């Protein structure tokens, strides 16, 4: 009976995007398919929101035998997927509508867009709940393929270039991830041949018996592989291109949750490796890549000219921070990293949406052409500003808390050099990012522009995210706290010293 309920839960969770994609293919009407997608996304959101309390109380849910496995860690990712998916679907309606109106896309494109969007959501939903790490890999690879299709939606030169780079780099990266996965599997069957050797549950169970050398090599492959997908430097190179060329809602999803999904995979293997050979090894690697990521992001943001590329680099920075938190370990580090995942997933789409609206209004992505947003579109301007301030870690917005925790844990774990470097980089990023942002938001527009927003449907998703940004800055719901706490316990291998 219980198993049936669980099976049903998972099935219902995965159903909306499948049905949505199907309906989109069948109906093909521009207006309707947008609403269908919104419905699908909101159904997912509602289910995930209902699922969270269950996870908090039951800790884990398994379904269809051992195929699906949901624990608190998965739930954190699911939450971010569903929230971002929902707001992105909302925003898509307005955004794609306007793109259609100004002739950038035609009906065929829109149908393809919504198909892709639904499938994209589906793949990202499966990643965190797949118990079989092979399936997880397959799904991560599938996200790449779907998102490549979404990026090259209009076949513009730059979009094709971005899609190509993304495809090649991500595929190469993910093949390394597969190598790593298979290595872990091999370690597992060498340790104890069991049926579910590829399953996460089985691996965790046997991890202590793994061969240390094998685990080390395997983790390197995993880190480089999924790290490529997660945007850790120096494998991040596809990211600014893909994020800047994709349609804005897709950029938001890419940045807000796709990176998280990939990083989720790293976390899973990090747990196994920690159990097997102790956390020092993987921590060290995570910290090194994190510091490089944050440093490169700082440098690139400083010189950035394109608004969306800047946001993309900011994603690199935040993935670095998440990796840093996991690497530092300890309750503060891991909790901070998970909180950072949530916070980033809330703040970054806000920024992408705002920048999308702004670039539609100004018909430009180059930051030098955008000035005085607050005069032209005051509401969007304020939302943009709040999102930006949140991203650079300004209180009273949400990222401040998670960054504070991560950096604290850095000192606590004795990583003084890394932490000091990161603090330096963060200050630089802060300066660089805000310099661009403030110049865009304030001042007088370069030419006379008609004052006006991009429409309610563009504002609402941003307003939702913005209120989350503010609320999470000063208050985190107890359910979420418990969830993240449980997830941190999973990562640290149970309990904190």
């Amino acid at each position, binding site marked *: 009976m219980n198993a049936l309920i669980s099976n049903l839960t998972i099935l219902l969770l995965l159903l909306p995007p499948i049905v949505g994609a199907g309906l989109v293919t069948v109906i093909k009407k521009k207006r309707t398919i947008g609403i269908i997608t919104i419905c699908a996304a909101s159904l997912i959101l509602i289910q995930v929101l209902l699922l969270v309390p269950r996870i908090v109380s039951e800790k884990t849910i398994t379904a269809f035998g051992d195929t699906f496995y949901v624990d608190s860690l998965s739930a954190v990712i699911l939450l971010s997927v569903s929230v971002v998916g929902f707001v992105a679907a909302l925003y898509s309606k307005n955004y794609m509508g306007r793109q259609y109106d100004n002739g950038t896309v035609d009906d065929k494109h829109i149908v393809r867009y919504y198909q892709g969007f639904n499938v994209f959501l589906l793949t990202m939903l499966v990643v965190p709940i797949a118990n079989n790490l092979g399936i997880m890999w397959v799904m991560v690879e599938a996200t790449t393929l779907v998102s490549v299709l979404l990026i090259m939606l209009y076949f513009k*030169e730059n979009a*094709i270039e971005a899609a190509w780079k993304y495809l*090649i780099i991500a595929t*190469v990266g993910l093949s390394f991830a*597969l190598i790593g996965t298979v290595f872990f*599997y091999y370690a597992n069957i060498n340790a104890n041949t069991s049926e579910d050797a*590829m399953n996460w549950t089985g691996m965790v169970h046997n991890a202590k018996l793994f061969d240390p050398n*094998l685990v080390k090599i395997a983790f390197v492959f995993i880190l480089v592989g999924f790290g490529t997908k997660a945007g850790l430097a120096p494998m991040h190179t596809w990211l600014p291109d893909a994020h800047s*060329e994709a349609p804005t809602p897709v950029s938001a999803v890419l940045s807000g949750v796709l990176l998280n999904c990939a990083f989720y995979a790293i976390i899973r293997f990090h747990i196994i490796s920690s159990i097997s050979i102790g956390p020092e090894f993987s921590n060290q690697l995570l910290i090194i890549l994190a510091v490089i990521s944050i440093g490169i992001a700082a440098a690139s943001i400083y*010189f950035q000219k394109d608004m969306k590329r800047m946001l993309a680099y900011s994603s690199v920075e935040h993935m670095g921070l998440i990796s840093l938190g996991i690497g530092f370990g300890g309750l503060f580090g891991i909790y901070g990293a998970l909180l950072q995942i949530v916070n980033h997933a809330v703040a970054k789409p806000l920024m992408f949406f705002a920048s999308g609206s702004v670039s539609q209004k100004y018909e430009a992505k180059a930051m030098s052409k955008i000035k005085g947003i607050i005069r032209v579109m005051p509401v969007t301007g304020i939302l943009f500003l709040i999102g930006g301030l949140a991203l650079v870690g300004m209180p009273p917005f949400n990222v401040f808390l998670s960054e504070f925790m991560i950096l604290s844990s850095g000192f606590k774990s004795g990583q003084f050099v890394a932490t000091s470097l990161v603090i330096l980089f963060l200050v630089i990023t802060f300066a660089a990012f805000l310099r661009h942002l403030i110049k865009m938001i304030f001042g007088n527009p370069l030419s006379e522009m008609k004052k006006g927003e991009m429409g309610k449907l563009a504002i609402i998703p941003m307003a939702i995210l913005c209120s989350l940004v503010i609320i999470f800055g000063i208050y985190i719901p107890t359910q979420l706290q418990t969830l993240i706490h449980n997830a941190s316990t999973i990562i640290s291998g149970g309990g904190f010293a």
Partner: protein
Amino acid sequence: METIQFDVLTISGAILLIATFGIVATRGFMDWLNAYRYQSIVLSGITAIIGYVTGIWEIYIAAGLTLVIKSIIIPKVLTYVTRKLEIEFKLETNPYVSIRASVIISALLVALSYFLIQQIPFKSDQIVNAYLPVSMAQFFIGLFVLVNRRTVLSQVVGLLIIENGLFLFAMALTHGVSLLIEIGIFVDILVGILISSILLFRISRTFDSLDVGNLENLRDD
């Protein structure tokens, strides 16, 4: 018995490497494709050997799939996609490192793979012993081809080499994880190749060339 088996394994691995070198050492698109086809056939043979040694029947299916998909379908698809392209697009004229040097580097990469793998315990599993370094070398060489070559086509080929390595690697280590996942991986790869073919087509249409030098608009300087 044991030694003979080992010899077979080593030799088949060596043949595979030679096939890979063939890709590194040639310029023209059709030459690579042939080399790749050859490599895939060897790969499917190796898969069959693994199946024979381990006695798992599913591996024969995988071998068959490999033969069909890799040595027939993928080359066909690539030929189909590129049939309209002018011949000079298909020629790798200007790699970063010359062909001769590429071969030497590839040899070094093979050595590197052996060096890196040395410390992994194999529990005297000869299959792993024989094929793991080979597959590792495949990754590195494939990656090197990707880094070195300047046409979009040769990059697809680099990707294919890596996929082959991956396949060999998975087979050698796991003797077939489970059919479901295996098929999943296959489908992913296939779709990936399809999408890259679409992209290839688009690139040639949009830029009138297959040189990746055209794809350098998005950068930060």
